[in-house]
C-alpha cells in the first residue's frame, strides 16, 4: 500500500506538540533532514550514519531520562536494519518511548530501491509480535491528530508506521559535526558543561 501522506506534514503534526521535555532522535538520511527542517531544536539528535541504531539510541536515552518523552522518528530501511531492538523495547517496557516509522517503502537515499515493506512486510505487525502493546498503521490524514496524541501521551512503548509518499525534498541546514550535535544536546538536557 503506497502512502499518500507528505512526510514533513506528518513530522510537523507530531513535533508542533513538543515541549522542553520532548527529546527527538531521527534515523539517518531523510528523517534527520525532516526534523531539522520542520522543528529545529537542540533537543534533536539526527543521525547521518550508524544505520540501525536510531531505536537503540532511543532505548538508552529513555532509560537515562525517564521523566522526558523520547520520540524516535526513522525510516523503514533504517528500522529493518535494527529489528532486534524492537524486542529490547518490548522487554524493557519503556513508558516514555515512542517510535514512528515514516514508511515510504524505499531506500530513499540510494536510488529509491524498494524495501520489503513495499511487499509483504508490515513493521507494525512485527513490533506487535515483538511484544510492544501499543502499535498502529497510519495511512490517512484523518488519523494524524490521534497519532500525535498517542505519541506524546500514551504510556509507552508505542510504535506506529506511517505510510508516506516517496518524495525528494531539500536537505536544508543540518548539523554535520557530530561533536557539536552531541554537545548541544547534552548542554540543553543536562545543563552546560555536563
Amino acid at each position, binding site marked *: 500500500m503506497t502512502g499518500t501522506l507528505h512526510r514533513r506534514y506528518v513530522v510537523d503534526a507530531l513535533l508542533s506538540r513538543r515541549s522542553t521535555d520532548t527529546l527527538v*532522535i531521527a534515523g539517518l538520511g531523510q528523517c534527520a533532514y525532516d526534523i531539522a527542517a520542520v522543528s529545529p531544536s537542540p533537543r534533536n*539528535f539526527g*543521525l*547521518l*550514519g*550508524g*544505520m*540501525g*541504531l*536510531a*531505536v*537503540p*539510541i*532511543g*532505548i*538508552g*536515552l*529513555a*532509560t*537515562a*531520562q525517564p521523566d*522526558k518523552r523520547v520520540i524516535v522518528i526513522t525510516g523503514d530501511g533504517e528500522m529493518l536494519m*535494527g529489528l*532486534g*531492538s524492537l*524486542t*529490547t523495547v518490548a*522487554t*524493557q517496557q519503556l513508558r516514555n518511548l515512542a517510535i514512528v516509522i515514516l514508511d515510504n517503502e524505499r531506500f530513499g537515499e540510494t536510488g529509491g530501491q524498494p524495501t520489503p515493506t513495499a511487499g509483504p512486510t508490515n513493521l507494525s505487525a512485527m513490533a506487535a509480535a515483538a511484544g510492544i502493546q501499543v502499535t498502529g498503521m497510519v495511512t490517512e490524514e484523518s488519523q494524524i491528530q490521534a497519532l500525535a496524541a498517542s505519541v506524546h501521551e500514551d504510556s509507552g512503548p508505542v510504535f506506529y508506521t506511517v505510510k508516506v509518499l516517496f518524495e525528494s525534498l531539500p536537505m536544508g541546514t543540518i548539523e554535520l559535526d*557530530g*561533536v557539536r*550535535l*552531541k554537545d548541544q*544536546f*547534552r548542554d540543553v*538536557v*543536562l545543563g552546560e558543561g*555536563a
Partner: protein
Amino acid sequence: MTEPKIDWPSAIFDVLRAQNFTQICHVPDAGHAALIDRCVEQNDMTVISLTTEEEGIGVLSGAWLGGKKGVLLMQSSGVGNTINGFALPMATRIPLFTIVTMRGEWAEGNPWQTPMGQAAGPVLEAMGVTVFRVERPEEVGEVVGAAAQLAFNTHQSVAVLLSQRLIGAKEFK
C-alpha cells in the same frame, strides 16, 4: 600448594561501582556471567540484554546523551557485529567502553571461534578504538579501571580484551 583464586569478575564490578556506571549492556557470555548476575542484583543499575552487540553501541550512546555512563559486555565473536556502529561514538566523541571476553585463542576447541577471535583486537584498532589486553587475573581490576577512566575522561572508545587464558578455555566433551 595452589594459589588462592582471584575473583576478577568482582574486581570489574568494583570498578563499575566506584566509577558510577549505571547502564550495563550485554550479549550474554559465560565469561561475563558472574558479573552480569551481580549487576542484575543492583537496584540502581539498568541491565539490558541485547539482540546483537551493535545495538549496545546505540543504547550506550543514547545513555550518554542522557547523562549516564555504561559498559558493553560481549564476547570476541560479537566485536564483528559492532564495527559500523562505532561510527556513532567516533563521529560524536561519545565515550564508549567495552569489556570483551576472548575466544579463539588459548586452548580453543572450536575452530568457528578463531576467525573473529584472532581479528577482534586488530578490527577494533582499525576503527580507532584504544585496546587494552589483560592476561593475568590480578591485573583485571587495575586495567579495567584505567581503561574506563581513559574512555570517559578523554571521550574515546576503549576496549579491554580479557584473554581466554585468564577466563579459562571452554571444554568440549
